[in-house]
């Protein structure tokens, strides 16, 4: 059973949990969202700061304040590593790739090139109750980013 647990709680996950990257809420930001996992109560408040790049908007910063389990905390930390500095289009691709991994029930082979530390979550896909934990931060990021872009359009 320890093997089963170890598949879920990879070292990388526990490291990010204990030392989360990019934590805290920072200025400047264009959108702030608050997401909750209704079943368990895990919460994240997340801000996105985009800047203009040559190929469209770029994720300049993602900052957050989160309450939750090891999986949701670590996934949010890894997410910030993956999206900050990328163009929104690239970051959305990474998001799609991570979503596919999470929804694959353990059958999808993760691509380390794209997902980097995110591959540590491959084991989570086998625990349906925890998939939502791993996606909480990502959903918040996507929501905040979409809001920023839409508001931008409105202006």
């Amino acid at each position, binding site marked *: 059973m320890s093997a089963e647990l170890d598949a879920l709680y990879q070292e990388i996950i526990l490291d990010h949990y204990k030392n989360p990257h990019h934590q805290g809420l920072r200025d400047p930001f264009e959108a702030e969202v608050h997401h909750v996992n*209704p079943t368990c*109560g895990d919460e994240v408040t997340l801000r996105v700061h985009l800047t203009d790049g040559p190929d469209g908007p770029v994720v300049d910063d993602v900052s957050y304040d989160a309450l939750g389990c090891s999986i949701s905390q670590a996934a949010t930390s890894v997410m910030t590593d993956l999206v900050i500095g990328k163009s929104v289009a690239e970051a959305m691709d990474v998001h799609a790739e991570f979503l596919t991994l999470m929804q694959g029930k353990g059958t999808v082979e993760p691509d380390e090139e794209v997902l980097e530390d995110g591959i540590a979550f491959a084991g989570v896909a086998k625990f*349906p109750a*925890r998939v939502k934990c791993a996606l909480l931060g990502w959903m918040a990021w996507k929501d905040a980013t979409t809001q920023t872009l839409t508001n931008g359009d409105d202006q």
Partner: protein
Amino acid sequence: MIDGLLPDLEVVRKDFPILTRTTPAGLPLVYLDSANTSQKPQVVIDAMVDHLERHNANVARAMHLLGAEATEAFEGGRDRVASFLGAPSREEVVFTKNASEALNLLANTFAWAGEHQLGPGDVVVTTEMEHHSNIVPWQLVTERTGAELRWFGLTDDGQLDLTNIDELLTEHTKVVTLTWVSNMLGTINPVAEITRRAHEVGAVVVLDASQAAPQLPIDLAAMPEAERPDALVFTGHKTVGPTGIGVLWGSRALLESLPPFLGGGEMIETVTMERSTYAGIPHKFEAGTPPIVEAVGLGAALEYLDGIGMEAIQRHEQAITGYALEGLATVPGLKVLGPTDAHARGGAVSFEIDGVHPHDVAQVLDSRGVAVRAGHHCAKPAHARFGVQSSSRMSSYLYTTPADIDALVEALNYTRSYFTLG
């Protein structure tokens, strides 16, 4: 051999343990009350037993092994409903306790603040052939909001009278709600046409598919959008599933625009004493512990029906209904209420016998092992329309045989001879 019967009828019958029952007098059971509730195949019972004996837990909230298994089984039931209806999205499938609750859910959420809130000047349109469950909720909501309830009348041959459709469907019409198949007259209504007309005036269309879902193939996604209802309901126990579960399918646009109905566990996003926010669909409308073992049973039931094929079931129903209409026509003094063309109707056939009250008909039939329903079948206005207070009703399903119909006809003749006319 009658054309259109299920080829494996005897095999199908073996799937239903209750059909081997006999009456206290030792007679075989002739169950002709399936429009009231259907019998259950062994696979449905077994699925429920397996769930209760091996996988029982609460859903969504539980993270442990049994909780994960129960959640998967429960949500698997939702997937099965979605595919049974051809629903554009599984999230549009809401579990209720029965069809009646689904209709009340809609009527109630139209009462409260929101895009669709009813008020004075607004009109809700229903029909005179509805089940009470598609009349009373709308009487309550129109009375409580000051809106007006209007309805399509019926023609003498049991069809909707559409001559005044332009008066009924106007820009004041906010909701049009009607049954797809009548549980009393058997009439199949032109729901695509009415939906299209209702959509033209901007009304929300609600279809009561309680009698349609057991009998007709339904494919929501394949319907042209203008003819697709905004909501459709049916009930588990009439589709060889258990009691305690019903289905509300609603388009995402409709469901997202309605306020919550029942409040409580499972339907929230966050709760403080001062204020709550709500989960997304379908959970927003599923307060409290849902019908878990019932969803497992319903999933198995719809899988069973899909396995046989809804087209095949429809053909079987038509064949049996045709055979029944012929048989009933041989009984002197018997009058069928509703359409007499088996291809243009569902499998519920209501009738009167001169001089014998429906209760007495049902009683004598029951003494011969033949189970039919007698009374108003929860459709008093439709009975009143035809000047009768009650009727007898036979209704068939995928396990009904021509021999069942023969037994009915023989018992009806016996009734006449026994009772008043002997």
